[in-house]
Structure formats: structure tokens, C-alpha cells
């Protein structure tokens, strides 16, 4: 798989002898030009023009590097456009916001950023609000991921065997996770609605009074968790199911001959096959649930009060409603760190699993 390709005998087309020869393949010169143009334009020109000029300089570097590598370095050339785009739209903005996190800056004011050192990080770490939102998020993550694991697992057990109509019914269960958060938010707003919502109507049969789910913190939290768990339990189910169907049938047949109990059969045969997938599902859902934003934003907008405001919603408010831009980037960096650690862990287990198989 990894053998080197048969290299076509390409003789590099007379590369420049010196770094200052202006040629399309001279990326060193382009780099020097860019290194001069970038700071110069940033200092002298208005922000708008400087941005586009810097972009042009960066393009020049890219073009010359491509011309230089053409035919010689296949791997880097193939991945370069993708890496360049990701750099432009992800890494560069992230570096920018890392810079901003050390400045006192409000995006809705004209004032230039003022260097503040670690002040933003201090504010964030000392802020009781941040800790409170992190606690809310942790609670949501634990409850929603826990529910998803249990419901997903039970659903997988249901669909473990082949039966008539399995394909269609499976698809009905899998649908929620393909839907949009906005749609889910709108659904559940409708179902939780006090006067006409299905939930309130169902409760009214027993109590005779309308039921306002979202008016106490605990119940609003439950409302969010039900919506999120409904949406993502199928994800856990899908992973567990793929583990369940990979168990060789002869193991079950042998267990039947030995008259092993259901419980014993599960722990000694089934569980080893789904263990790694359960772990992966847990990690993946934890990462995703940690970022929870859309459902909360649309269902409760963090309310009542701020009782269901998760960290994602709080960063959004900090950045785009209170416009404490510097502080919000500092907080965003802390979130980023957590997600990077979790993603690393996830990939580690993915690799371990594929190595086992």
C-alpha cells in the first residue's frame, strides 16, 4: 500500500541557480517578497487593502511552490490545496484569535486592541459564571450521553437479529440523527408548548392543568436532554449494532451447546466484540455533547434565567451579544484545548481497534 510510485524520470527543469532569479518556480523569492509585503502593507495601508494584498502575496508563494514541486513531489502536491484552504479558514483564524485572547478588545467598538497579557485568561478562570456554565455543560453531557448509551444499546439489541422489514424499521429509528438541530429544536418547542403541545395535553389528562415544561430549571434541562438524546441515541445504536453483527455465529452456537445463561453469553461472547465500539461511541458523543449549542439556543435560549446556558451558548453570548471579544477568545481557547484532548483520545482508540482487527 505504501510503496513509492514508479517515478517518471523527470529532470527538474533547470532550477534557478540563485534565490533572486525571478522565475515561476522560485518559491524562495516569493517567500521573501511575501515577508516584506505582509508587514509593510499591514502597517501602511488600510485594513481592507492590506488583507487582499497579503492574500495575493500568499497566493504567489503557493503558486511558485506548486510550480517548483510539479512532477517531483506527488504527495505534498495532492494534499497542498486542502491544507492551504484549511490553513486559511481554520488555522489562521485560530492563530488570530489566540493573538486576540491576549488583548483587551471589543469588536463593536472602534478602539484598537490593547495588549493585556494573561488578563483575559485570569478573568475567565476567576469568573464564577464560567464555572457555573461549565457545570451546567458537564451535567448536560453526563445525562445526555448516559441516556444515549442506554437507549442506543437497547435499540441495538432489538435490531440485532434479522427479521422481516428490518431495513425499513431500522431506517425509521436512524432518521433523527440525520435531521437538523434547528428542526429538532422547532419540533420539541412545539411538543413542549404549554397550551397545544402534545406533552402538556397528555399531562393535562391526568392533572387537569396545563403543563409548562420549560419553566423550571430542572425540567428545562430534562427537555433539552430528551431532545438531544432522541436525536443521537441512533448513533450509539449504529455503532453497537455493527459490533453485534460482527460476532461470529458459531460462538453463539457453541454457547448454546454448553447451555450458557443469557447473562454469561453476553459477558463472555458479545461484550468483548462491542467493548471498543462502546468506548468510541462514548467519546464521540462526549465531544459532540460538550459543544451543544443549537438545541439549547433554539429550545430554551439558556433559560429559564441562565439555568440551561451551556458553555457553547455562553461563548456565543460573550462574543456576539456582550461583544467582550478578547475574553470570549480566551474562553474559546480553553474549550479548544479540551476538545483536542478528547479527539486525540478518540483517535487513539480508533487506531487501537483497527490494530486489533
Amino acid at each position, binding site marked *: 500500500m505504501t510503496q513509492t510510485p514508479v517515478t517518471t524520470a523527470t529532470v527538474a527543469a533547470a532550477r534557478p541557480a540563485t534565490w533572486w532569479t525571478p522565475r515561476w518556480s522560485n518559491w524562495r523569492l516569493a517567500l521573501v517578497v511575501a515577508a516584506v509585503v505582509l508587514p509593510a502593507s499591514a502597517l501602511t495601508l488600510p485594513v481592507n487593502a492590506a488583507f487582499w494584498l497579503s492574500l495575493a502575496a500568499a497566493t504567489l508563494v503557493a503558486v511558485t511552490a506548486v510550480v517548483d514541486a510539479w512532477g517531483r513531489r506527488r504527495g505534498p502536491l495532492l494534499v497542498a490545496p486542502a491544507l492551504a484552504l484549511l490553513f486559511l479558514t481554520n488555522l489562521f483564524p485560530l492563530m488570530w484569535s489566540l493573538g486576540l485572547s491576549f488583548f483587551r478588545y471589543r469588536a463593536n467598538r472602534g478602539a484598537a486592541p490593547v495588549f493585556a497579557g494573561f488578563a483575559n485568561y485570569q478573568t475567565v478562570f476567576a469568573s464564577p459564571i464560567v464555572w457555573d456554565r461549565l457545570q451546567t455543560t458537564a451535567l448536560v453531557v453526563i445525562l445526555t450521553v448516559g441516556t444515549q448509551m442506554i437507549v442506543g444499546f437497547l435499540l441495538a439489541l432489538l435490531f440485532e437479529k434479522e427479521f422481516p422489514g428490518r431495513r425499513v424499521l431500522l431506517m425509521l429509528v436512524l432518521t433523527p440523527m440525520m435531521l437538523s438541530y434547528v428542526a429538532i429544536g422547532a419540533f420539541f418547542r412545539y411538543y413542549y408548548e404549554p397550551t397545544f403541545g402534545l406533552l402538556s395535553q397528555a399531562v393535562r389528562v391526568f392533572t387537569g392543568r396545563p403543563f409548562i415544561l420549560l419553566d423550571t430549571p430542572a425540567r428545562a434541562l430534562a427537555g433539552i436532554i430528551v431532545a438531544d438524546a432522541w436525536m443521537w441515541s441512533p448513533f450509539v445504536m449504529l455503532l453497537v449494532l455493527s459490533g453485534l453483527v460482527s460476532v461470529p455465529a458459531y460462538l453463539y452456537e457453541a454457547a448454546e451447546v454448553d447451555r450458557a445463561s443469557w447473562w454469561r453469553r453476553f459477558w463472555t461472547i458479545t461484550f468483548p466484540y462491542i467493548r471498543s465500539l462502546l468506548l468510541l461511541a462514548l467519546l464521540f458523543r462526549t465531544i459532540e455533547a460538550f459543544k451543544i449549542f443549537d438545541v439549547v439556543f433554539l429550545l430554551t435560549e439558556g433559560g429559564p434565567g441562565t439555568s440551561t446556558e451551556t458553555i457553547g451558548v455562553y461563548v456565543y453570548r460573550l462574543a456576539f451579544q456582550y461583544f467582550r471579544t478578547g475574553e470570549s477568545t480566551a474562553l474559546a481557547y480553553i474549550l479548544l484545548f479540551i476538545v483536542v484532548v*478528547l479527539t486525540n483520545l478518540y483517535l487513539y482508540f480508533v487506531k487501537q481497534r483497527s490494530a486489533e482487527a
Partner: protein
Amino acid sequence: MAKGYRARGVRQGGWGRTGLAAVVSVAYFFPVLWIILTAFKTHNDALATPPKFLFHPTIENFIAVFRRSYIKGFEAVDTGFALFFFNSIFVSASSVVIALAIGTLAAYGFSRFPLRGNDTYLFIILTTRMLPPIVVIIPIFLMFRVAGLSGGYAGVMLLYTAFNLPFAIWMMKSFFDELSGDVEDAARVDGSSETRVFSRVALPQVRAGLAATAVFGLILTWNEFLFALLLTGVGTRTVPVAMAQTIGGDIGVRWGLLAAIETLFLVPVIVVSFLLQHQLLRGVTFGTIKR
């Protein structure tokens, strides 16, 4: 194929299992079903207590999605939803096409010509997808404001391309990894150029994968909310944003109308995800888990 599948442990259950699964599945699907039913109800039926299961279906809600009068008795005016649907389709389709082109090349590179630090690159790429969108959007928002990109199609398309790219790379890499390199080597021995090996040998073998990746990308982009909320203007608004604004906005408790918008928005997704069933696991885990 079906036989091998069974031998791997999918045991037989009878019609009893079908009955149980049907009850559970329909109950699970019920929230979606109810929305679709509500979309066909008149205003009074939608608000009926107790809820009505039998009613005379009407399509007035679907018409009202596109044209309705804001004040009772006045002439119906365009609500702009036709434009929002066009925007959603246009932005998702173009960004998916670009992301797929760039991503497939990169995936082929990562799979066949590993770089030094290949796994590190792949890790960084996946991380950009796993990041909380809110983390990325703050600097992007400022950057786009400086560059004059916010509010127009170009900015959203650029961002969505980047949003789809990590997904396209990981998905396509997982498909390329499954191919044996032997066929490609045979073509090389026969004197095919590298370009030809890629376009005539490798690419046709992953056609199904390309289709699956494209459809998943379309669904992901179609559903995306936060980026669209912050970066689209009045003329480039996508359906999720318009829908969210409608929930909190002028239609109040016209649930039938809201359900009609949702139905139009969801049904394409439900239909195409049905076609994707076999690639679903790979798709929802960004190609990290194949089986």
C-alpha cells in the same frame, strides 16, 4: 454477500421481533411523523384538543410557506422562502462540489503517497472538524468583516467548503484505503501516467464512496445553523436560519405553517439518508469507523 453477512452473526428473528421493532420504531419516529401530519392540517386542526389523528388534509400551509398575507385580509406577498431554499441548495451544492474535488485529491495523496507526519496532518484535519464551531467562528467573523466577505455568497461558500473538507478527506481516505493498490500498480507497469492512474483506475473504483461523501456533505451543510446565522445576509439567508427566525418571529402559534416549512426542509434529508443506509456508520463518524 447476503449469505456472508448472515454467517457473521446476524441471527434470525421471526415476525414476533418485527412486531416489537415496529412498535418501537414508529414510536421513535413519531415526532417526525407528527410534524409531517401537522403540515397537512388546517390551522384549527393543528390546535385541536385532543390532538386529531384523522383530518381532511390540506396543502394551504405549503402555499403559505411561500406566499401569505401578514395582515388578515390583505394581499398575499412573497415570504422569501423560495429564495432561502434556493440559497440552501446553491450554497450546499457548490461548497460540496469544491470540497469533494479538493478533498478527494488530498485523500488520494494521504492514502497513496504518505508524507512525513501523515498521521499528524490527518489528526489536525479531523480536529478542525471536531472543534466547537463557536471557537472558529469568532475570528472568522472578524476576518470576514475585514475582508468584506460577510453577508455575501462567497464568504459562506468558502466557509462551507472548509467545513466539508475535513469530512471529505477522511471519508474518501477510508474508501481509498480499502482498495488494493495492485490494480494501480498494474496500470503503472503498463505505462499509465500518474494522472491517468488516478482518474481512470483509482477514481472509478470509489464512485460509490464519492456519491456517499457528496450526499453526506450535502446533508451536513443543509442542516448547518451557526455559521449561516452569523455570516449570511438578508439575501443569502439559508433555510435553517430563516426557520429559526420564523419560530421566534411573526407566525406565533401557526404550527401548521411551521410544520410545513420543516416538512419541506426534512423530507429530502429523510429520502436521501434512506439511500445511504450502508454508508451511514462511516458517514456519521467522519470515516473513522468503517465497520
